[in-house]
C-alpha cells in the first residue's frame, strides 16, 4: 500500500491545528523534563537537527530543485519552496550582509505559534528553536555549515519573527573510514 501511494502523498496537506497542538505538547513535555529554558532550547534544536537531516531528503525528492550555485540561491529556495511546502508560509528574504554570507528570513505568521503565548517564568525559551535545528541539519546534509538563530520572535513581543542565517563554510565530503 505504501509503495503505490507515494505519488498521492506528495502534496498531501493537513490543517495546521493538529501540528501546532502537537508541537505545543512537545515543548510542554520538554519543559517538564528539563529545569531551565536553555536546556529546553538546546534539546529542541537537537531534535530539529535530526528532523532536518531527514527532511532534506524528502524535500529533494519532492521538489525538482537542482544544486544551488550560491548562498543567495539557497536562501531563495528555502524561503519560496521549502517553507511553502512544509509549513504553508512564505517568508521574505532580507537584510543581506555586505559580504553576502548572512541574511534574514522574515515570517509574518508562524504556524508553530498559533494561539501560543509564553508564560512569564519561561521568558528565556525560544519556542521555535526546532526550526533553527531543522534548517541547520538540512543544510549540513548538502554540505553547508550554517549558523541559525532567532533575531526577533513574536512570542517575545516583536512584531515579526526573524530568523538570521549565516553561512560558515562549505563542508568537505568525508569518505567513510572503511572505504580504503
Amino acid at each position, binding site marked *: 500500500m505504501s509503495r503505490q501511494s507515494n505519488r498521492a502523498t506528495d502534496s498531501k496537506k493537513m490543517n495546521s491545528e493538529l501540528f501546532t497542538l502537537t508541537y505545543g505538547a512537545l515543548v510542554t*513535555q520538554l519543559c517538564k523534563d528539563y529545569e531551565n529554558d536553555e536546556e529546553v532550547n538546546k534539546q529542541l534544536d537537537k531534535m530539529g537537527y535530526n528532523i532536518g537531516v531527514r527532511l532534506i531528503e524528502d524535500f529533494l525528492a519532492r521538489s525538482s530543485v537542482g544544486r544551488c550555485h550560491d548562498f543567495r540561491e539557497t536562501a531563495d529556495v528555502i524561503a519560496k519552496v521549502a517553507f511553502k511546502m512544509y509549513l504553508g508560509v512564505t517568508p521574505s528574504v532580507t537584510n543581506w550582509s555586505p559580504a553576502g554570507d548572512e541574511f534574514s528570513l522574515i515570517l509574518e505568521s508562524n504556524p508553530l505559534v498559533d494561539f501560543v*503565548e509564553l508564560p512569564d517564568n519561561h521568558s528565556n525559551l525560544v519556542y521555535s528553536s526546532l526550526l533553527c535545528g531543522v534548517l541547520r541539519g538540512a543544510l549540513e546534509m548538502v554540505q553547508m555549515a550554517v549558523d541559525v538563530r532567532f533575531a526577533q520572535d513574536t512570542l517575545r513581543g516583536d512584531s515579526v519573527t526573524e530568523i538570521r542565517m549565516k553561512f560558515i563554510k562549505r563542508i568537505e565530503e568525508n569518505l567513510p573510514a572503511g572505504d580504503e
Partner: protein
Amino acid sequence: MEVRFTRGKSAILERSLTRPKTEVSVSAFALLFSEMVQYCQSRVYSVSELQARLADMGQGVGASLLDVLVMREKNGKRETKVLNILLFIKVNVWKALFGKEADKLEQAILTHSGFPAKVTVHWHKGTTLMIKFDEAVIARDKSLDGR
C-alpha cells in the same frame, strides 16, 4: 507587568476561532511526530512506559481540541450520551485531524467530556481503536435512556 498581562492575554483571546487558513504538509507532521516518539523512547525502558508518555502528550492536545471543536461546530453544547460522543468523535474530530493516528487524542477527548474510558490500539487489519468505557458511564447512560 500589568500592561503585559492585559495586552498579551486579550490579544490571544480575541482572535477568531475559525479554522486557520494555512495548511501544513503531512510529512512535516510525520517527521515531528517520529522525533517525539524517538525522544520518549530514549528516556524510558519499556514499551508500556513509552505508550504512557505519548498518551500524556496527547492529553493536552485532546483537551485543547475538544474546546475548539465544540465551540466551532456546536455553539458550545456538549454531548452527554455515549453514542453521541462517539459520533462526534467519528465525524468532527476525525475531520479536523485528517485521519491521523491518534488513540491518545481520542482518550483525552473522551475523558474531558466526562466519559472516563480506556482506549487501546489494536493492529489487526489496519488500526482499530477499542474504547472501553468505565462501568459508571454505562450505568449512567442506561439511566438517561430510562428517563
